[in-house]
């Protein structure tokens, strides 16, 4: 948008709050105001410089991050060097595998520009489950929905790849 018009249609104050940002995330879009306020209280806002490691592959993780602003590169290390998987932008989140149990990170994450991350960690989540079970359950259900979607996509892709592989093998056998 033109900076001039941007200035006139200024973003409302509410849209600048952390709770509003959390509400825009697909995992938390079904939460009401009170639940978002609780979530705002249990997340940590972390500021990163450009080219700073968020975590490396093999670290034992303790939570997930959502990107409030900036950019994060997810990559694996192999013999050829860095193997980029994906570049995540504002509103994406990553590292959710380590939220419920301490699992090693399966990829490294590094910021490519100055970035603000919102971290949700296991210890805070467990505390919220103890203190406020109902909103915490809704938060977890929302996360679960997104993770299920990703799993579904994964299995569809896997099936397609299997089919492709079978076709390829048939072709090589026919030749």
């Amino acid at each position: 948008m033109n900076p001039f018009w941007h200035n006139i249609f200024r973003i409302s104050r509410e849209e600048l709050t952390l709770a509003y940002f959390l509400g825009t995330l697909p995992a938390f879009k079904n939460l009401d105001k009170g639940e978002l306020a609780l979530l705002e209280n249990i997340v940590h806002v972390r500021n990163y410089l450009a080219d700073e490691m968020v975590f490396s592959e093999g670290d034992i993780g303790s939570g997930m991050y959502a990107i409030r602003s900036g950019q994060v590169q997810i990559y694996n290390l192999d013999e050829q060097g860095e193997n980029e998987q994906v570049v995540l932008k504002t509103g994406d989140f990553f590292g959710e595998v380590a939220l419920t149990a301490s699992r090693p990170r399966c990829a490294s994450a590094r910021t490519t520009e100055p970035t603000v991350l919102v971290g949700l960690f296991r210890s805070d989540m467990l505390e919220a489950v103890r203190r406020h079970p109902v909103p915490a359950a809704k938060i977890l259900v929302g996360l679960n929905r997104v993770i299920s979607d990703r799993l579904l996509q994964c299995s569809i892709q896997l099936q397609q790849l299997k089919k492709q592989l079978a076709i390829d093998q048939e072709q090589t056998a026919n030749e």
Partner: protein
Amino acid sequence: MSNQGGMSRAQVAVLYLVLTSAIASGIAIYSSASTVTVLLKTATAGLFLPILLSLIVSFLLDPAVQFLDSKKINRSLGIFIVYFLLSAFIGLLMLIIGPPNWEGMILALKADFPRYTIQAIEYLSSWLAVVQQQFPFIKDYNIAENLRTTSQSFFGSVLKETPRSAIRFGSLLLLVPLFTFFFLRDSRRIMRSLISLTPNRYFEMVLDIYAHVSLQLAHFIRGRILEALIIGIVIWMGLSMTDIHYAPILAVIAGASNLVPYIGPIIGMLPGLIIALVDLGMGGQFWWILCVYLLIAQIIVDNFILIPILISKASNLHPLWVILAIVMGGKLYGVLGMIIGVPIVSIINITIIEIRQYRRTFNPYNRYFSSRGKML
């Protein structure tokens, strides 16, 4: 000419000024450092005890406040409700049982104390005489005289300290609820802002360790206090069945000394046994009192019931550490230091154990190295 040295005359002058001022300020800071520490010491002198007590009280009250919090009651209001309920409960207890006559008891104890010490010393010297008959090579050490002077000086200091400690107690009554209120209300916020200071790379680890340690600590402190309380009540009930004087005071001593493992129960037992021996003689009641202290309170209630339920094995200290903690605590803060020294060392112990466990299981490099440090 001036360029040959690499610096102009003005630069040399500036350098000279900077160096002299740096040295001068260094000397000034160094000489004032001692006064600063002295100032800090005097400023924080009386605060150690109230802050410690309010931390303990807030650990104890936290579950109640938590419960009200989960019922969607404002946290500050919840804390006030808990305060009100607690004071109402204590008041009700006072009304029903009637306050134990502490003042009269302390006055009576003041009058009786010399009698007890003299009697105890007499017993001791008679035993000593027997021992010397059996083993004549033990020199007459004059233990009795030594004990008498030390006990008299101890009693004198107690007399002198009583009014001062009354003033202290008053300030504690004011400060502890105030500090506790803020600890209960804001501890989460305070700790969150402290943790958020850690660098990004270590943030996850610090957060996790903090969560573990605080959970363990809450468990430990609540367990210990509850244990001391129950032991005190058991001993009170047991002693009330006999004709012994000062049962409430003895129960308080036994409960408080129970906070110190290994040595505490023995020390806590001594005054009761001496009073029983002097007032009641070596009869059935004396044996019953010994039985209450040793068998019922220590072995049955504490060892078989309370410790397995309340105290986790992980926080057990080696006896050597316990003795060191008692000696060092005693040197720092007297009798109070002896009581709180062991819990503080246990807290440090728990923290170290947690960090070590974290390092062992969470070490990011253990995939690349074997347990003996060899590259995999």
